[in-house]
């Protein structure tokens, strides 16, 4: 007997005998790997495409100069163009322009229009040169023409030669589609116009978004960057291409990491299933292993045998998972888009790129997770003394050692400790570790907890009252909890995560609901199609609105983008009338706020969103300098408010302060409160009657709420999907372990049938076992999930997205999934219980034939 052949013989016989369990473990690994791999593929495809698309817009410049505000004065352009170290200066004016009738979501209705000087851009971003009709080259520099990417043409349903209506503030402008941008990336929705045309038609005379620079040969980029930054002074940023990449990466990093974490949860659940499969298999084959040891198998050989079996499972599962993951990613990208419907990567259509190294990494993760799940049972099997193991009936004792309470206690304590640690690189690394440890600790405690619960139940309920069947079920759960608990590991992990996510999402949703109530107090919101930095409503338009009858109150808002840190996405500035007596009446403030009475008169207050505190270190009571107005001014941070709309930060200030500093009297938004008894339809009609009425975007606050929730729900759809996958894996695990246990318990059922237990009663017993165990799992899962949700709500969310929320429990929903879990577990038990009442079990009691 050569060991290799023994290996094959043992593994094949084992797998043939327990094909169902092996299949489930295989599926669990495959699904786990597939989920993690596909999320990775989708994320990296979307991210790469998004940054490639962004890069194609900025071309191959060496440096970029931007203003601290969203726009800079064009006077800088000739200065840079004539600079002795600069070979080429390429001025760019980039606007997101509203397209009438395309308002589908937060960013959906915007068309990115890039204004370039084709003569300059030709040398830095040639991809942005439009292709006009033959002989109509001058269309590139005309004031009434626009070039659209194929995706934009498709989206707007126009072709070369068609007229395109766009909204510039309160004006509708008509442009001619002069041609295409053939080198735009797939799905990239962009338009290119002459820079002079954009300045004029969109009211941005004198403004640029950025100036891209190509340096002369032999100029040291880094040194020149520093020098230029110094020459230009405080009001400008000088960036390298790498800075731009970091900025883009920062925009979606939290989203990507969090999604990856969720995907790993599926893998995590898979690990438990592998562990339970291996553990159960080791228990089942205890006598077989003991016999082998007696026959002369060494411990090392046995260890190798078990681990190799796990490794085989891991290899097959991981390979399967890679294929499945690739397919899932391809389908998801095709139908949901690269951001899975969350709008984190607007306007790109990524294609999946298969990187063999990624595949190797995920294969390794799948394999090592499987091996990890095999090691503990293998060590246990090896440690067993063959003489004892040969005897039947002591299987459960084997598992007792695996659930040392110390391990669980250490895990839980570490989890508790980790919740107190700050984020690393602005990511809630410790938060996620705490979740993992909480899960591991909770699951290892499960057998003890099960034993304790069911034993005390058994003691409290007298046998004679509950009858033989329930006594049998309870006694088994109380005295042999380990096998059952192992089976439950997967379900516990997935259920508790589902609970956690449900609580988190509900908390988020309820908080957003309350927040929307605070930020949308008016009845109607009117917006002039936003264009760049200009407020759409000039004074005359504002007065015309105020003059309309039917309003109790009219508030004007001015919003603007500020660049405070070149490595981070822009911060949004809101200038609006804030209630001086109590800012709470205007803003959804947290408790971190200066009492209105104690605000000094001479300072200008700003209220900052929570992200500003996390990202820029703003503290209430501190003075900050912001680039608002001709020269940066000093402001006092007067309070912190919740903002679920902008994770990169937002600042609110008094409109009067803004207007005094900037002299800019235009506004972008109007909030309208209706007089009692005025119908909104009448008011909308009278707004439409205004000379600029057709250009207004009028939204009822109820519609805006509905839209917000639609976006919210769509963002979490993929989360739900991942959770459901995890739960299905968990249920599969229960099914597999039930079927395996029923095989192992054939003699027991045979004996019971002999002594007068009816078929029905055996089924009831099994269902009760499954149901009771799941009930306990649900209860424990709920407790664990609640704990995890606390981490998600109070640690992960604030650390990743910089917003806090209040905890809300979706009782109805939780109850519903608990019931569904119970029913499905009981049904699973019942389904596999059929084997327990077959004729085979009667024969199983006989030792001889």
């Amino acid at each position, binding site marked *: 007997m050569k060991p290799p052949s023994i290996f094959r013989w043992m593994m094949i016989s084992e797998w043939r005998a327990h094909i169902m369990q092996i299949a489930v473990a295989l599926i669990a690994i495959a699904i786990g790997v597939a989920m993690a791999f596909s999320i990775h593929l989708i994320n990296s495809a979307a991210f790469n495409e998004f940054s490639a698309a962004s890069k194609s817009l900025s071309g191959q410049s060496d440096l970029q100069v931007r203003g601290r505000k969203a726009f800079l004065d064009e006077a800088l352009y000739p200065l840079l163009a004539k600079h002795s170290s600069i070979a080429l200066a390429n001025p760019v004016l980039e606007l997101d322009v509203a397209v009438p009738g395309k308002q589908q979501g937060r960013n959906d209705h915007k068309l990115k229009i890039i204004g370039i000087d084709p003569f300059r851009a030709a040398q830095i971003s040639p991809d942005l040169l439009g292709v006009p009709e033959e002989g109509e080259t001058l269309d590139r520099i005309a004031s009434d023409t626009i070039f659209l990417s194929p995706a934009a043409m498709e989206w707007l349903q126009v072709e070369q030669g068609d007229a395109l209506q766009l909204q510039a503030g309160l004006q509708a402008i008509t442009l001619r589609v002069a041609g295409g941008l053939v080198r735009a990336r797939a799905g990239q929705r962009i338009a290119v116009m002459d820079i002079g045309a954009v300045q004029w038609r969109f009211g941005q005379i004198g403004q640029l978004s950025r100036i891209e620079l190509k340096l002369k040969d032999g100029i040291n980029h880094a040194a020149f960057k520093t020098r230029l930054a110094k020459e230009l002074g405080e009001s400008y940023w000088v960036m390298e291409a790498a800075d731009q990449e970091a900025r883009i990466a920062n925009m979606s990093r939290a989203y990507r990491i969090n999604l990856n974490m969720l995907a790993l949860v599926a893998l995590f659940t898979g690990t438990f299933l592998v562990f339970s499969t291996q553990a159960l298999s080791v228990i089942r084959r205890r006598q077989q292993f003991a016999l082998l040891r007696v026959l002369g198998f060494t411990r090392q050989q046995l260890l190798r045998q078990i681990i190799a079996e796990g490794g085989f499972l891991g290899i097959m599962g991981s390979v399967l998972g890679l294929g499945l993951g690739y397919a899932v990613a391809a389908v998801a990208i095709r139908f949901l888009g690269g951001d899975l419907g969350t709008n984190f990567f607007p306007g790109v259509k990524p294609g999946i790129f298969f990187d063999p190294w990624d595949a190797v990494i995920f294969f390794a993760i799948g394999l090592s997770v499987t091996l990890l799940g095999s090691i503990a049972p293998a060590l246990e099997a090896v440690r067993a003394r063959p003489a004892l193991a040969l005897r039947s*009936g*002591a*299987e*459960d*004792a084997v598992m007792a050692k695996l659930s040392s309470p110390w391990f669980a206690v250490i895990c839980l304590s570490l989890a508790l400790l980790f919740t107190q640690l700050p984020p690393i690189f602005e990511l809630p690394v410790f938060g996620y570790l705490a979740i993992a440890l909480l899960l591991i600790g909770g699951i290892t405690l499960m057998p003890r907890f099960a034993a304790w619960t069911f034993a005390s139940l058994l003691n409290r309920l007298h*046998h*004679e009252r509950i*009858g*033989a069947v329930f*006594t*049998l079920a309870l*006694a*088994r759960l*109380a*005295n*042999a909890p380990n096998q059952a608990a192992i089976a439950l590991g997967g379900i516990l992990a997935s259920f508790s995560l589902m609970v956690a996510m449900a609580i988190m999402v509900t908390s988020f949703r309820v908080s957003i609901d309350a927040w929307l109530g605070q930020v949308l107090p008016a009845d109607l919101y009117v917006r002039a199609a936003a264009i760049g930095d200009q407020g759409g409503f000039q004074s005359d338009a504002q007065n015309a609105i105020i003059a309309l009858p039917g309003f109790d109150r009219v508030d004007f808002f001015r919003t603007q983008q500020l660049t405070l840190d070149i490595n981070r996405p822009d911060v949004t500035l809101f200038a609006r009338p804030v209630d001086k007596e109590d800012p709470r009446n205007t803003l959804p403030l947290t408790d971190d706020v200066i009492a209105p009475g104690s605000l000094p008169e001479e300072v200008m207050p700003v209220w900052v969103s929570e992200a500003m505190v996390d990202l820029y270190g703003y503290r209430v009571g501190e003075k900050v300098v912001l680039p608002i107005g001709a020269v940066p001014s000093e402001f006092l941070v007067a309070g912190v408010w919740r903002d679920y709309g902008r994770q990169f930060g937002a600042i609110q200030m008094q409109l009067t302060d803004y207007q005094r500093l900037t002299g800019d009297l235009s506004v972008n938004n109007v909030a309208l409160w209706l007089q009692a008894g005025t119908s909104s339809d009448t008011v909308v009609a009278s707004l439409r009657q205004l000379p600029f009425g057709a250009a207004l975007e009028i939204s009822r606050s109820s519609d805006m709420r509905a839209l917000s929730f639609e976006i919210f729900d769509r963002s979490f759809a993929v989360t739900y999907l991942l959770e459901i996958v995890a739960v299905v894996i968990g249920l599969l695990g229960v099914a597999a372990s039930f079927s395996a246990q029923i095989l192992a318990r054939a*003699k*027991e059922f*045979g*004996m*019971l*049938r*002999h*002594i*007068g*237990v*009816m*078929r*029905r009663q055996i089924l009831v017993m099994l269902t009760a076992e499954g149901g009771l165990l799941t009930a306990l799992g649900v209860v424990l899962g709920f407790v664990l999930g609640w704990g995890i949700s606390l981490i998600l709500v109070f640690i992960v969310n604030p650390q990743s997205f910089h917003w806090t929320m209040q905890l809300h429990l979706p009782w109805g929903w939780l109850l519903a999934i608990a019931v569904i879990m119970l029913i499905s577990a009981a049904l699973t038990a019942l389904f596999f219980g059929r084997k327990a009442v077959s*004729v085979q079990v*009667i*024969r199983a*009691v*006989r*030792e*001889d*034939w």
Partner: protein
Amino acid sequence: MLELRNITKGYAENRKVLINLSYTLNAGEYVAIMGESGVGKSTLLNLIAGLDSPDSGEIRINGAAISSMQDDAATQLRREQFGFIFQAFHVLPHLTLAQNIALPLLLNGIATDCVNQMLEQVGLHGRGHHFPRQLSGGELQRVAIARALIHRPRLVLADEPTGNLDPDTAHEILQLIRREIKANGATGIIVTHSHMAAATADRVLHLTKNGLHPAQPGHNL
């Protein structure tokens, strides 16, 4: 007590195990059935217990035709009137000894007060809270015997009850089985290869292809 009338049972066309077997066992009798492997001893036991039904013929227990009963009725009959002792004991590992012994009582809805007394009777006094893994093979079979008799069954079926035991323990167990069957006034059938075991019965029957026949006197010990 037990009537077997013209029992025929086969598993395939050409593999008839029992052919036209008839026998009657009186109440209070304790018989041993011997026979070669494969002659149908287990099949016979399953038929008697109502766990399997004959192709033809009838089996009556105290006049009730168990062979034609529905599964539930047969199970009910088994639960009330049968006791089983197996070669591999089949004591449930996750139940205590007392719980194992009390199982038939619970199934029949009878008070479990007599379990301790039964433990004492089989020589396991004071060990009711122990779990099976703490017991030796002989002790486990004592638990099985207690479980088989606790509900005072009319018929006790023992299938090679000492097959897994050493001769000394086997002897003790055989004596215990006999004593307990007799003490309960039950009818007993012991199926065995062991002449020593068979010798503890009142009568020894040989199962052959031709039916059940009393053993030749020479076969008795």
